[in-house]
């Protein structure tokens, strides 16, 4: 009788021991070290500067903060700073201030060295380091070489609502619900209308930095998230989802640098779609526009979110576990992440915050 009673207890003890083993050893996840933020420097960008101290462009970060453009060294010296007449296109290699109505653009190096001039009407912008010019009617995009030579111009079927580019492709969403993808020679790679809604319009579009996928939020009544993936050399719809939202305004869509996650604005926060698992999560932050930066060594992402009232920096562990967030006042905002440091601009101040694991 006693022997029979003890058998289930031994089994139970063995099960508990196995559970402990699995929990603490076999399937243990190491605790992430805590991130520690160390303010490094702050500098005012409101004064004109032309120090010429940063002769090597790689040692400066170009900025646009409110009505000023320029560059700052990684150790906090203002290498160049000037007011921009109206707006500016900024990359780390080139800064192009421009007036509202101008047919001549002048590009400067990060320390203010004049580089080249472009005779064309439109407003310039950079995507993935490539220089583009969008026409006054928002229906034509031209690409220029780093030396300012016209590479190609492309007339899109209708007015653009969004545009993204990677190393060799560019994609545009249009008011008529069409999406067109163009290669680095200005040739059509994709012409596609997602459809599926009563009103056709593309509200936002993004290109996977590895050029394997295109994501878009499109349509109204009903609005959809659509993901196209390259298969056999052509982009085909891999996933779509009807959304609760009914935006009639731009919706930012972005891929993480590794292409695995797609982030797009929703009313309850920023939706994160995981291309590997097909699951969707939400980062609970409201943003009218946002940019992403990857902290690849730590496997983290930085989300720089903008609303009319606040600007935020959110560090998250993909898909959507927020590690920390940092809110700044609304208005002028500039943000970069480089080699474990955050470079932020707010109001007329630029600053650096070093991030370490402790």
């Amino acid at each position, binding site marked *: 009788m006693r022997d029979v009673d003890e058998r289930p207890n031994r089994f139970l003890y063995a099960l508990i021991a196995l559970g402990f083993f699995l929990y603490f050893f076999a399937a243990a996840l190491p605790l992430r070290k805590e991130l520690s933020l160390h303010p490094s420097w702050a500098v005012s960008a409101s004064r004109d500067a032309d120090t010429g101290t940063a002769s090597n462009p790689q040692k400066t970060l170009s900025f646009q903060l409110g009505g000023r453009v320029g560059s700052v060294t990684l150790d906090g010296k203002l290498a160049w700073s000037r007011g921009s007449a109206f707006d500016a296109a900024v990359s780390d290699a080139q800064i192009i201030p421009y007036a509202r109505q101008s047919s001549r653009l002048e590009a400067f190096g990060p320390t203010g060295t004049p580089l080249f001039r472009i005779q064309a009407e439109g407003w310039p912008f950079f995507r993935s380091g490539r220089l583009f010019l969008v026409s006054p009617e928002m229906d034509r995009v031209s690409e220029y070489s780093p030396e300012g030579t016209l590479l190609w*111009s492309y007339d*899109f079927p209708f*007015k653009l*609502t969004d545009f993204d580019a990677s190393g060799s492709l560019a994609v545009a969403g249009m*008011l*008529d619900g069409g999406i067109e993808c163009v290669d680095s020679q200005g040739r059509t790679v994709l012409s596609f209308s997602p459809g599926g809604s009563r009103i*056709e319009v593309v509200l936002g579009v993004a290109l996977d930095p590895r050029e394997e996928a295109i994501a878009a939020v499109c349509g109204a009544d009903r609005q959809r998230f659509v993901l196209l993936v390259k298969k056999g050399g052509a982009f085909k719809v891999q996933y779509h989802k009807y959304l609760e939202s009914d935006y009639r305004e731009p919706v*930012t*869509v972005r891929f993480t640098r590794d292409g695995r996650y797609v982030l797009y604005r929703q009313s309850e926060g920023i939706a994160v779609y995981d291309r590997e698992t097909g699951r969707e999560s939400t980062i609970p932050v409201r943003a009218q526009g946002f940019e992403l930066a990857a902290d690849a060594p730590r496997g983290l992402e930085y989300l720089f979110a903008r609303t009319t009232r606040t600007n935020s920096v959110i560090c998250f562990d993909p898909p959507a576990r927020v590690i920390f967030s940092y809110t700044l006042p609304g208005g002028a905002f500039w943000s970069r992440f480089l080699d474990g440091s955050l470079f932020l601009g707010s109001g007329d101040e630029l600053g650096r915050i070093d991030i370490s694991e402790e």
Partner: protein
Amino acid sequence: MGLTVWRLFGILLALALPTSGLGALEWPVSGGVPSVPFGSFHGGRFYPSMTTGPEGAQVRAASAGEISFLFDGDKLPSGLPCPLGGFLALSHPDGMISVYGRMERGSLPHYLRAVSAGDVLGRAGTSGFHAGRETVFTLYDRIKRQYLNPQVLLPPIRDDRAPIVRGVYLSSGGRFLPLGETRTVRQGTYEVIADILDPLSSADMRSRAPYSIRLLIDGKEVVRYVYDAARAESGRFRFFGSSRLDFESFFLEDGRLRLGSFLLARGRTTFVLIVSDYAGNDRETSGVLQVE
């Protein structure tokens, strides 16, 4: 006889376009006068919209529809500059879209969805690329994926002046030979260049695109360009509905029009250029050449 048939064709076309979707349109601004009409050479390229004053005017829906996209600023949240400025798009039944650009910041109706014809959408203002305060009105057929000329569908405006042909030239080897001054040319292929504007009144000498251009050589119609529609295919603007020209091949850098290249054989050659505006005013210019 030819002109009558041609006029009838134009009327039928104007009638056919509204029935294809939009119905009668209303001017987006009251007392509107197009300062840059559809098809103009504007900013160094073909202009698929219509810029219309008066400056700072209230902008109204040209037809009933639903707001599909609205943006109030100079840079989209994704960072794409928006030289069209504040703008909104109305989706109309049967796939038509009307776009109202360069609107005064803060005047756009964020609260609206469905609108009726004549509803106020905002105010023309300083936003986008141009410093002027006129609005940019664009009409688009989503089904055919082409721009439509709004003036074909809008109520006609007073226009008591026929188009002006400032010159017709034969071009060969970089030389421009003015038709009328040139009496004799050698046999060969020549490009016909025309310098045309279409004023609304004697006080108005701004360059405007006409409604149609016809060129007859020795009584045979060799060119017929109707400014009715335009579309971009494979990254290039082509217009007009009937001729599908590449705009790059149509405009010279100074805005003069390249009507085509023609082989002129020996003998007497007669050129007739007929330019029409929206009100039905025609300008006919002719010339005779001896080809040797």
